[in-house]
Structure formats: C-alpha cells, structure tokens
C-alpha cells in the first residue's frame, strides 16, 4: 500500500498526542505549526536562555506540560515537522501553507486540525487603548517573556483563566489592581455538581481565589462594564465597573487583561467545508463532530480547543482520539478499546466544561447592550452605532451582510475579537435569536499573508 499522508495542524497538546498516536499506528505524519516551538499557547515553551523551571511556568499543570514537551521531543525523528508555518487555506484536498514567504500545497489522505483557541471578547468603551490586552496575551507575556503587561494591571472578564492569570501575575511579583468578574457568585454554586467532574481543578480554582483575597487584591463578582479610562497617547489610566449594587468603582491601572473564556479557531474547518451547528450553552456556532472528532467533511478530523473548548487536559484525549479514528478509517489500525476509554474521559471533561459555561456565563446581554459610541471592531475603529445602522438603516439580516455594510469583522483580525459580540449586537438590533444572526464565514487566507507569497504561486 502506498504511504498514506496524514497531516496534523497544530503542535499544542492535541496535535502532539495526535502525532504520537499516528506514529504508534505506523504512520509518519506531517505536523505543521505556526509557532516557533511546540507546546501550543497553553504549554508554550520559553525561549532558549530563559531559566525558570516547569513549576514556576506551569503551576499545577507542570507535569502535564513537561510530559507533552517530552512526548514531542521523542517523536521528532519519526515525524515531519514544519514550525513557523501558517496554514491559510484548505482546498482541492490539499493544505495550503506559507513559511518565510514561500507558499506550498500539500495533499493529504487525512487531516487532523488542532487549531486551538483565542480569547472571547466583549467590547468595552476604551478597549482600543494601548495597554488593553487579551487575558491569554497577558499570560503569554508572563509565561514566554517573564513580563507583566503593565506596572499596575487590572483583570476583567470571566472564567477560570481570569483568576489563574491574576494569580500568576500576583505570584510573579506584578501589581494587580483588581479582578473584575462579570459572573455572579450564585452561578458557581449552581454549577458545583458539574464542576465536581474534575475535583482537583475545582479545588485549584478555590485555592487561587482565596489566595488573591489573602493578598488583599480586590475581587468583584457580578460587575457590569462601564469604561476603560485613558487617552490616545498614553493609553490606559484606569477602569470603572458597576458593582452589583449599582455603584461605580474605579481602579487606577496602566493595563487591563480581559477575556470571557475562549472561542475555537474554526476557520480551517470552515474552509474545509465542515458543517457547523449552533451550541446553545455557549451561544456560538461550532463545527459538528462525532464522539471521535470526525467532521461532516471527508477525511477531516478536529481535536482540542479548536473543535470545542474542553481545556488542555482534554485536548490530549481528543488529539489521540482523532488520530485513532483516522487510522481506523484508513484501515491502518483499529484500537476500539482505547477509543472507548478515551471517549469516556472526554465525557467527563465535557461535563466539567458545561459546568464552567454555567458558572462563568458569556455575558451576552452586556455585549448586546454595548453603548453606541463603543468601538466594536478594534482593527478599524468601527463603533456599535455603525454596526446597528447596518441593520436598522441598511437592512442587513445577519452578521455577514452586516459585515459588508459596517466592516465589523472585515479588519486584520478577521472577526476573531469582534465576531461573538457582533452577533449579539446584530441579534438584539433585529429582535431575533443570536442563532439567527449566524456566524462570520471563514475566508482564505485565514491570516494576512504577503502579496508576494500569492504572486509567486499564481
């Protein structure tokens, strides 16, 4: 039989475990990753010459991070690996890549997409100012560069990452001004039974929240968004939120790290023509997969947070699962027992993720109600008023049409940071459900590439 080409996109925990399972199944996969080194965002490796140990870098997840790194190091002779390579299209049974200005089309027999996630954002007045960063970005500054995003940092949003990053900053010696959570405490109580599916993570979350309090850092829950203060030249100078009682509280700071959980990077699945379905609990459209990670598109598999946000631990499970499914479908190996075991593990992580979505809900009402003058699209400084006018005055009926009229979603981030909130604004302006507002379609190239790259290959 001719050698089968299986491509894995991404070298985070899902991609590494997928590659490992493929090698064990007798295949030499091609691993394509945009990062300079393996590990993905969550287990990002610090550059050569940095000396912090695993415990300092990854905390309670140190052993897992080290195991994933070591697994990849062991795999290197048995795989083809293309780091610093962007996959920018899927077309005609090939993966289109670019690296150092050179484009290439690589055909595949099976494709396992482990594209990861980015932060999910709600626009707040002033979030376009210098000094505002995504929570994930704030964590990368610390983890990969040993820097804080400012001299006095406020954290805003919801979800486990909010508390984790604030705690990592405080522990590393940064000055944390406040932790401002839009979720009320009562949701956490209601979700306790589901969160108990991962008791150690629940315990870690409780411990870090207590430690923030012990350090005297103000932690406010159930806040609503007001404004990030500052000016055009110097950037952020403070943040105001409304507390549960309606009082406006201001915290002085020169940086804000903000994020409301994560959203999967689904553009590649979209370009591969995978079918999407609306996920009511998280209020977003996700690619459809079966329990193993098969999509509606032939020979395309999804794993990790790029399919659904189930966390780094589960990414290792779904990465292996997708690889085993691909091997079985190609008739190369069938480890049915192992697949059943992994599927059971995945179900427990799914229950935990459902608990997180309940405990730390996406504040869709805050997104829908964002003030007219607030910039929704940071890329091109387009306001909520302009987006609403595309519905009310121009008659757009869903987000892609609204994008055409308003340019919200058309900027250089291609809707990654405005898309979720824009859908809520469109839905509210239309008086319809967010499901009916639709989703921004993925467009190639999924990230800007040089015109010279395209020219060389035309």
């Amino acid at each position, binding site marked *: 039989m001719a050698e089968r080409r299986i491509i894995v996109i991404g070298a985070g925990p899902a991609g590494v475990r997928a590659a490992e399972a493929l090698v064990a199944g007798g295949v030499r996969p091609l691993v394509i990753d945009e990062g300079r080194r393996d590990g993905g965002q969550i287990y990002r490796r610090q550059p050569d*010459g940095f000396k912090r140990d695993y415990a300092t870098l990854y905390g309670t997840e140190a052993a897992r991070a080290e195991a994933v790194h070591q697994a990849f190091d062991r795999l290197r002779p048995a795989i083809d690996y293309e780091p610093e390579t962007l996959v920018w299209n899927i077309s005609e049974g090939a993966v289109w890549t670019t690296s150092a200005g050179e484009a290439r089309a690589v055909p595949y027999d099976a494709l396992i997409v482990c594209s990861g996630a980015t932060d999910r954002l709600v626009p707040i007045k002033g979030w*376009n100012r*210098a000094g505002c960063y*995504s929570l994930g*970005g704030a964590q990368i500054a610390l983890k990969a560069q040993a820097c804080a995003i400012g001299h006095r940092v406020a954290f805003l949003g919801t979800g486990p990452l909010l508390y984790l990053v604030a705690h990592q900053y405080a522990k590393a010696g940064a000055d944390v001004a406040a932790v401002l959570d839009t979720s009320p405490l009562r949701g956490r109580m209601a979700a306790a039974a589901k969160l108990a599916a991962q008791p150690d993570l629940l315990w870690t979350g409780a411990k870090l929240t207590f430690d923030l309090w012990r350090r005297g850092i103000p932690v406010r829950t159930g806040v609503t968004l007001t404004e990030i203060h500052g*000016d*055009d*030249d*110097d950037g952020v100078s403070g943040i105001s939120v409304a507390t549960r009682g309606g009082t406006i509280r201001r915290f002085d700071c020169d940086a804000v790290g903000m994020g409301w959980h994560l959203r999967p990077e689904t553009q590649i699945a979209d370009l591969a023509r995978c079918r999407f379905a609306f996920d009511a609990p998280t209020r977003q459209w996700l690619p459809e997969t079966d329990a193993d990670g098969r999509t509606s598109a032939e020979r395309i598999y999804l794993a990790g947070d790029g399919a659904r946000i189930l966390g780094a631990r589960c990414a290792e499970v779904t990465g292996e699962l997708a690889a085993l499914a691909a091997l079985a479908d190609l008739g190369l190996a069938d480890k049915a027992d192992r697949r059943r075991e992994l599927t059971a593990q995945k179900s427990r992580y799914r229950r935990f993720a459902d608990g997180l979505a309940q405990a730390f809900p996406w504040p869709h009402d805050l997104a829908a109600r964002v003030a007219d003058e607030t910039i929704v699209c940071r890329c091109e400084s387009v306001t909520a008023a302009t987006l609403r006018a595309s519905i009310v005055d121009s008659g757009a009926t869903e987000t892609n049409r609204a994008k055409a009229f308003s340019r919200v979603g058309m900027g*250089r981030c291609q809707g990654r940071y405005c898309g979720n909130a824009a859908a809520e604004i469109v839905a509210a302006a239309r008086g319809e459900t967010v499901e009916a507002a639709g989703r921004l379609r993925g467009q190639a190239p999924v990230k800007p590439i040089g015109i010279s790259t395209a020219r060389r290959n035309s």
Partner: protein
Amino acid sequence: MTGRFRRLAETGRSEVRFTVDGQPISALAGDTLMVAMLTAGSALRDSEFGDGRRAGFCLMAACQDCWVWTAAGERLRACSTEISEGLSILTTQPEASWPNVG
C-alpha cells in the same frame, strides 16, 4: 512613561541593540520585538483610524494589532518576531501613509 511592560524575571540575558524610528534601544536576547519595544516605550504604532496609539492585543499572532515595519518595507508581527542585533524598525508604514481620520 518609560516602558509599558515590566520585566519580572529572566533579566540576566545578554544585551541586544536595535533602533526604533532611528532611536537606539537596548533589549535582551530572547525578547520578542514587542517586549523589546514595550519595555523601552509605551506603544508600537498609531491606529490608522485616528483613535490613538496601539500596543498590540493578543500576543499570539491572531489579532495583527502589533504590525511594525523594517526600513526595507517588510511587515513584521512584533509579538512573534524575535529581536536581533542591529534590527532597524519603523513604526509607520514606509511606502504608504493612510490619511488619519479626524
């Protein structure tokens, strides 16, 4: 403001020198261009749409807010470019300027 970012550890690395808009800047080996620029200054570029200075957002090569340019006109994502000795960075696009709004 001297620097937007604050170094918390790993300060024993060797020095790397480069320039931003002709001004000499000192950074540390292993810094990203973004960290090198933002530990010395407060922003990376101007918004083309007239709403002030920008200093990046996602640090994971997704938002494209951290674009800067080399003197030769090459566009770099500051968050995912490692600093190198002698690099000459421009914070405005060399061959084209957009009229700012307002």
